[in-house]
């Protein structure tokens, strides 16, 4: 497998490590997104459950996916800034 092009602002080993971390975070999000879409397609009845604050799982999961995207992006950026 070809390594993605190294970032200009890091040494090649650091860039390769960051790239691997990025891919791990990417796959974590794929699992979250795929899991949610799977629920919508296969068990939509579960999304009617109201587990917190009287709000249904459909809304909580949707908001959670948006927050998770920002959270993972922030983890990735801060990880590289502090390295």
């Amino acid at each position, binding site marked *: 497998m*070809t390594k993605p092009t190294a970032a200009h602002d890091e040494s090649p080993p650091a860039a390769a490590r960051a790239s691997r971390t*990025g891919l791990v975070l990417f796959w974590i*999000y794929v699992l979250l*997104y795929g899991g949610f879409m799977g629920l919508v397609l296969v068990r939509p009845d579960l999304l009617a459950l109201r587990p917190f604050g009287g709000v*249904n799982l459909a809304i909580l999961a*949707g908001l959670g996916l948006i927050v998770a995207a*920002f959270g993972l992006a922030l983890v*990735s*950026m801060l990880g590289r800034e502090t390295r």
Partner: protein
Amino acid sequence: MSHEASFAAVAIFTAFVLGVLGLSFWLGRRGQSAAAYYAAHGQIHWFVNGIAFAGDYLSAASFLGICGMIAFSGYDGFLYAIGFLAGWIVALFVIAEPIKALGTYTLADALASRFGSRGITLAVAISTLVVSIFYLIPQMVGAGALVTPLLGLPHAAGVVLVGVAVTLIVVTAGMVSTTWVQFIKGSLLVLFCGLLVALILGRGLTVNTGDLTPQVRTVTPDGRVLVDGKPQSREHDLRPVGTLSALPARYAGRTTTGPLGPLEYFSVLEDSTIVTWKSTRTADEHGVHVTYEPVTRSGAELLQPGGSFKGLRSGRLADRLDFASLMLALFCGTASLPHILIRYYTVKDAAAARKSTVTGIAAIGVFYVMTLYLGLGAMTSGALDPTDTNMAAPLLAKSFSTTLFALVSAIAFTTVLGTVSGLIMAGSGAVAHDLVSRVCGVPLTDHEKVRCGRIAAVCLGVVAMGLGILFKDFNVGFLVGWAFNIAASANLPALVMLLFWRRTTAAGIIAAVTVGMVASLGWILLSADTFEKVYGLSRDLAPVPFSQPGLVTIPLGFVVLVVVSLLTPPRPAR
């Protein structure tokens, strides 16, 4: 519904547009090199670029389309928001830095960088143009939808107004003015949507059953418009719709909740009863009739998936595949949109590309959370136009005040300006830099490259205006799904495999881009949605089993790339 222009609306709108155009002319007074015109010299600050990402990406589809879809169908519009944002994860973790490192001005630069292939440049330039044009259609439709109630002008006038304004923005200062227009638009959009959400929560929910008599709009064979059998006028028009008929039992004896918290708003709405309106179209010798009838539904039903994507409740496999295909295309499409990718060339290095993506995700994420409140607020505002789903957000603002309506409409208009200018920049680069200079080998000086880009921008502006008038009656959110499908099918397999598979060859990339683009475009043209909404034919005549092609054509792009690459000799990379 017919709409009356207000002086405040016209004044604020005019000030916005003149301000944006003035900024463009001011920026355009500085000398224009190709590097400035196509990539703003690569010197845009990462924060400005991040907000400009939001300004570029939060198009008419996001603001007008998603809010409208939520207002009329409930939760399903929010699924678009989730998919649109999820795509940024692909952009951040997979595409952002390599694109910045590989390219100069255009997507074709990046894909052709390893092989120096004119064939790749040609294929990618054509796919850039196709994607940009498909993405332009909903933006122009949105522009027409906005100008009608704001200025009292017909749809076509709105489309032409946007076309002319955007062409001027791009022609005067290229990527520099485009970036600042997108920055201003992104900032204003998030700030004013935040204000609207605060007003929605402050107002809470109020019972207002209104007049629930069905309404009929007829267009006679000689072109007259009748409402309930009488000529349409300001005095005799369709009534605004979208009301709440009952609050939860805990509010017994009350007609309003008072201010609600962010989560409380959803929980109260879920236990409420809401009146939405469905339309039925019939035709006879007296004309085409659209009947609008009230449907009383529980909040719990409206806050579940399946209001717009009927297949989620019907259980038909083809409908479920259609939904899965759309969600896949939204996830894969963002990182394949040429007008988004060229923003990576406007910052100085990979670190700035990364930071600007994270800033963009933050701004875009906040906005998409707010669309849920805006759509649901519009659904119960009693202000919806039953004939136009795209006007939900501006009419929600009108339910608070005319000034807010004017401000929100003007911001929505700059929303269209920002996105369309980005699209025309991408198309202009594809024509001048890729096709004329690289593929045809026409030697262009720096100055000629800019002039060629400007001519291409004018041509694209004219095409965009024509398409915006032609596709007037479509929901803009629905239309933009097509652009995502084509972008993901044509560009993503090539981008990903170029980065992650050493055996990729130039022929493989050309084949993947061409097959992905032709297959997704062909699938869309043969789909049930196109048969019904574009050709006016029965859905049953469509030869493809579901309308969204991504589920088939994105994997097809990967397979074609692998097969062709294995069948062609590897050429040493440059």
